[in-house]
């Protein structure tokens, strides 16, 4: 019969083995050529890089503990199991339209995809409601398990540089201080996206990862509830403000020198909002905003068909004859934590 000593030693050995395994588990070694496309000039930061790295903290999972989707499969619009009110992340390039359902991205956060011949990483952080796309060249991005201001920190598998998603800027490694080359994603509902892109492809739940895609660990969007509407924020923030509800959706943008944000519902009501050096217009097709940089913007008049009149010409919201910036939808608390001095209407 087994002695109690043997049972105790076996249990201790099992725990020690697991601990040793975790200690020795590391991300794969860096490849020699990163080939990660970077922006010509980095975005403005409101803190020093060292302040960001000091504030960065583990969210629990190790690198790749939240597994990115590296071999995405797609179905056509009729094959998608989505309701019109379900949130998706849309991307169009080279004549191809793709929809990435929020209920999948909440579990995987990054899709390393190729759309219309362009290698992109489609990224989503459920805690900050931010969907941002980045050119990725020949490398892939992974989920680091670290958080900065409750927001996703990604890593480039080639160099193991860490990047903040919202700041779109390198925090550590070879690319520290450099900004990623962003592509424009749209955070909208399936019904709105499909109305504009009926031939869209939709990310399949056949992701190669075993998850329950019908269960959101944080809350729900159709209708909005749980974490997505509660005042509480789970992880610490570098800056806080009570100017708006923390989960109020804003649309923000940044340049090399400054940042701006507009409350999405205000933009919906006013159609055109201005802040110093910026102007935003509402895009009713997707319930989002488009931000332009202009020190002296012309008169912009909304029309009944959702377009805008500028100097007698009609333009779609995302096609005004101004310098368009990369617009990011986000919870207010998250934008404010990164850009506390952001200009606004």
């Amino acid at each position: 019969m087994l002695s109690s000593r043997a049972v105790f030693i076996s249990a201790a050995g099992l725990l020690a083995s697991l601990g040793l395994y975790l200690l020795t588990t590391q991300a794969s070694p860096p490849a020699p050529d990163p080939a990660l496309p970077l922006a010509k000039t980095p975005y403005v930061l409101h803190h020093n890089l060292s302040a960001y790295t000091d504030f960065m903290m583990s969210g629990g999972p190790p690198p790749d503990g939240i597994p990115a989707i590296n071999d995405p499969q797609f179905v056509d619009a009729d094959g998608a199991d989505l309701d019109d009110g379900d949130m998706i992340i849309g991307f169009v390039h080279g004549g191809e339209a793709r929809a990435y359902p929020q209920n999948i991205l909440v579990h995987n956060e990054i899709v390393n995809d190729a759309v219309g011949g362009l290698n992109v990483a489609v990224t989503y952080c459920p805690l900050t409601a931010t969907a941002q796309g980045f050119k990725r060249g020949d490398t892939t991005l992974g989920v680091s398990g670290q958080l900065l201001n409750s927001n996703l920190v990604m890593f480039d598998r080639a160099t193991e540089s860490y990047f903040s998603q919202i700041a779109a800027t390198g925090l550590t490694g070879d690319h520290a201080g450099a900004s990623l080359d962003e592509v424009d994603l749209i955070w909208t509902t399936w019904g709105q996206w499909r109305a504009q892109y009926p031939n869209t492809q939709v990310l399949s739940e056949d992701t190669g990862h075993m998850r329950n895609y019908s269960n959101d660990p944080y809350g729900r969007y159709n209708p909005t509830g749980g974490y997505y509407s509660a005042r509480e924020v789970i992880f610490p923030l570098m800056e806080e403000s009570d100017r708006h509800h923390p989960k109020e959706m804003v649309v923000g943008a940044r340049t090399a020198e400054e940042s701006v944000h507009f409350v999405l519902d205000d933009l919906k009501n006013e159609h055109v909002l201005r802040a110093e050096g910026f102007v935003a217009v509402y895009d009713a097709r997707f319930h989002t905003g488009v931000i332009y940089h202009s020190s002296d913007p012309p008169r912009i008049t909304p029309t009944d068909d959702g377009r805008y009149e500028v100097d007698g010409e009609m333009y779609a919201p995302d096609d005004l004859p101004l310098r368009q910036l990369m617009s990011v939808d986000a919870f207010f608390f998250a934008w404010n934590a990164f850009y506390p001095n952001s200009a606004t209407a």
Partner: protein
Amino acid sequence: MRNAWRTLITLLRVARYRRMALGIGAAYLVLFLVALRDITLGGSGVQFAAVEWPRMFEPTSTFTFEAVARLTLPGITVLIAPLNILIGGVLSLLAALNLMVTYVAYNQPSACSFNRSTGILASLPALLAGGACCAPAIVLILGLQVSSLFITTFQVLIPVAAVLLLITLKLILDRTHPERLSLADA
């Protein structure tokens, strides 16, 4: 040590204690897997999917690991992560034995050289072990803001709970005298 083992075997020879331990252990394992989100609500139809088995060693967090299969049933989805089941099984076994022995100590104080309240206190590690896997759920439900210290603490809670359960189990068993137990089966 020998006394502890002898007491445990003596108790497990009694069918009602065996059933009690089995019931507590099974319930604890299910709760553990629910807290890890390996058992979640949502799902339609009946489907089974699997990926390659070596992925069971990929960690999803400290002491939690990847699922290699998914069973979808109407209204419920079960992710099968062998190492989570193994770790949950060890914790469940220890918690079940602790609670079973605590129950005996409470009902038969004459067989134990400590009082009833001590026996109940001894079951606290079993509750801590429960907290080890419930922490993220508690954070979300209560809307707590977590710190780095919380995350670090949470990451070692499972092994700490296992060690505490081992210690308390041995302490209670050492102070329980099998010859004084009334073992009439129910």
